[in-house]
């Protein structure tokens, strides 16, 4: 459902999306067959990666907190498909999917999860704290809300350097109530910073449902008092995500300032591996899984619209399985970091 802050639009069902798209006036918003298949590939990669991470956690190979993204794949895949190479991305601790769409290597991400030398942070960061300067991925933040002003600052730098980039800043429905979010909104609109605030509304912050934490629950309105436009999007529909994000990105790139996107999504697993998730019913979870699963629905759409054949999709499934198996093997085999690494990377030499 694409609800705009001003005008509400009727929901277009996922199944009819492929036909609807040809009527869209803006040409580049169309998801052609090739793109649909690519969305499928990326979403499946994330899901299989997360399932494997869950398994390795169960074996004691991953420690501490590990937050899985299963169920939310369409958000990051659709949103990121609108990005350019100079753009930057920042998110919370629920970050594995974001890194994968940024083009970070599954092997390096998995090896960080196991705390090994070949991980993106040499094993020193772990699941919640991973970065890639090369891919303009700025973390991986463990403190709720912390990434929002930082993402605003990345947008400040894009504007300052006039590099044409925008910052994709992702955060949860729970984080939305943090004061620093509104301080960021104010500065972003005041200085017309090129930032997309992408709220991943999965309906819970840990065990607290959104209506038990928020006085108003239409989160896309949260920029109103600062004059920031917002839109609510069906975050389980990758094409809808992609279209809404493309419009928002156009707004930011045109120098009109920030845009808020509220992605309606759902996480299937507990908050982290140690959360039994007793605060919601099994029926609630299985209903979403059955009716709204972003991967199943896209698969159906691809087959129906003949964007690709069953066989092509099966080939993709197989190749992803191989990538994930490789990544897991790599992450198990990679050695623990050298003990000398304990004291490195704290400060760098000042030269001059």
């Amino acid at each position, binding site marked *: 459902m694409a609800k705009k802050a001003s005008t509400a639009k009727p929901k277009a069902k996922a199944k009819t999306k492929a036909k609807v798209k040809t009527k869209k006036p803006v040409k580049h918003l169309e998801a052609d067959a090739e793109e649909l298949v690519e969305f499928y590939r990326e979403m499946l990669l994330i899901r299989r990666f997360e399932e494997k991470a869950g398994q390795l956690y169960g*074996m004691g190979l991953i420690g501490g907190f590990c937050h899985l993204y299963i169920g939310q794949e369409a958000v990051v895949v659709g949103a990121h498909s609108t990005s350019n190479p100079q753009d930057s991305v920042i998110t919370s601790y629920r970050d594995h999917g974001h890194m994968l769409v940024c083009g970070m290597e599954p092997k390096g991400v998995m090896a960080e999860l196991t705390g090994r030398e070949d991980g993106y942070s040499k094993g*020193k960061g772990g699941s919640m704290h991973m970065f890639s300067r090369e891919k303009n991925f700025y973390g991986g933040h463990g*403190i709720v809300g912390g990434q929002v002003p930082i993402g605003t600052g990345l947008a400040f730098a894009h504007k300052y350097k006039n590099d044409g980039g925008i910052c994709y800043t992702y955060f949860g429905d729970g984080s939305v109530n943090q004061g620093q979010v509104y301080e960021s909104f104010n500065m972003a609109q005041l200085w017309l910073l090129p930032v997309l605030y992408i709220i991943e509304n999965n309906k819970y912050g840990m065990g*607290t449902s959104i209506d038990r934490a928020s006085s108003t629950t239409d989160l896309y309105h949260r920029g109103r008092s600062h004059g920031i436009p917002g839109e609510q999007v069906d975050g389980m529909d990758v094409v809808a995500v992609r279209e809404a994000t493309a419009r928002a990105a156009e707004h930011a790139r045109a120098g009109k300032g920030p845009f808020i996107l509220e992605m309606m999504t759902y996480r299937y697993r507990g908050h982290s591996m*140690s959360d039994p998730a007793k605060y919601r019913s099994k029926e609630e979870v299985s209903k979403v899984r059955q009716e709204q699963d972003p991967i199943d629905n896209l698969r159906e759409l691809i087959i129906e619209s003949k964007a690709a054949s069953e066989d092509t999709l099966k080939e993709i499934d197989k190749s992803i399985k191989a990538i994930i198996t490789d990544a897991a093997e790599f992450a198990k085999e990679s050695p623990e970091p050298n003990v000398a690494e304990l004291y490195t990377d*704290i400060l760098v030499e000042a030269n001059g």
Partner: protein
Amino acid sequence: MPIEITMPALSPTMTEGTLATWHKKEGDKVSSGDVIAEIETDKATMEVEATDEGVLGKILVPAGTENVQVNSVIALLLEDGEDKSALAGFKTSAPTPVASAPVDVASPAPSSAPVAPVAPVAPVAPIASEPEYSGEMITQTVRESLRDAIAEEMRLDDTVFLMGEEVAQYQGAYKVSQGLLDEFGSNRVIDTPITEIGFTGLGVGAAFGGLKPIVEFMTFNFSMQAMDHIVNSAAKTRYMSGGQMGSHMVFRGPNGAASRVGAQHSQCFAAWYSHVPGLKVVAPWSGADAKGLLKAAIRDPNPVVFLEHELMYGQSFEVPAGDDFVLPIGRAKVERVGTDVTITAFSRMVGVALEAAELLAADGISAEVINLRTVRPLDIETIVNSVRKTNRLVNAEEGWPQSGMGAEMAALMMEHAFDDLDAPVVRVCGEDVPMPYAANLEALTLPGASKIADACKSVCYR
């Protein structure tokens, strides 16, 4: 070859669990995502989902089995096309866990070590000495002691209330507030949004208005967002108002090292808070400490920062039963009497220091271990009395060295016991680095018993 289903680790601290129920029986078809079993961990009951497809061939660990080690094989799954014959003579190849070395967790030492009779020298402020307790004792976890302290004080005083993230319906992120919502209702046990600066400031206001808030931080790492209201509002208003008003309140939650959660979630703020005039800062070790000091903190008319420790929550101690056991804030406790060297420590490190004292005893060195209990105000008298006897001091803490509690001890000894020292004061601290995630690096970061023992030997010139 059948697929092995192994006992999963479902929390950062879980090493074993109870296999509560099987949801599938032998011969049942299993698809990935199906719930196959329920497991009880130290914190909760969790469902186990299958990650592979097949037919459940054999259940190796029956429902109801306790203490099932993580990673042991609990069932065998037959893959597509396999039949039961594949199970015959199947040898498990269960991997042994790697890279999950737990941080150095102290085993609790008996808290009944004799207490040295201390003759008061020049008390800085009149602080009650520890009450004699000869009543009934019960064995309970630190988690339960804390819960009981809160519940007892809430029963006694209806202006006391608890607020924080997940404290009510979820029963506490670390289950400290288990049962409190049921007993006291949602007016007094309040789930907050994830807005630390907001709810902490609100707590200060409620205290100005005559209530006695207990503000829980899910962990003290997140109190960094609330630092302004703790330091600038709660700690200073008594002074700035010329004594007219203050903040009768407690800030509490786990502080210090946790297991494998990396740099933003594993750090000690004791020295930070101890820097601030207008605050009291308490860091209990044993169950009795936890109970007696938390009750004192809730009754104290000042803002009290109460630093618990996640790795202590599950440890059991003998604790005075009944609801009138209160310990004085500002008094340290000599946990073990010795003559050659004094070790000061607080929170989890007290247990590690007691282990070190055992190691030293084997080498003929008699160490006196002081459990500081309160890091502001410090019980200087008890420390100085001990150093007059042993002439040596080693401070042990998880936190970083610079401006840490050890640095404070060194300065205090210069001021109060310079002529009594036979060796320089030594600090044993966490390594001066952000906490790494990797298991091997993490294990190197926190001081263990042997590091403390080595420091003690060095000051004894041994």
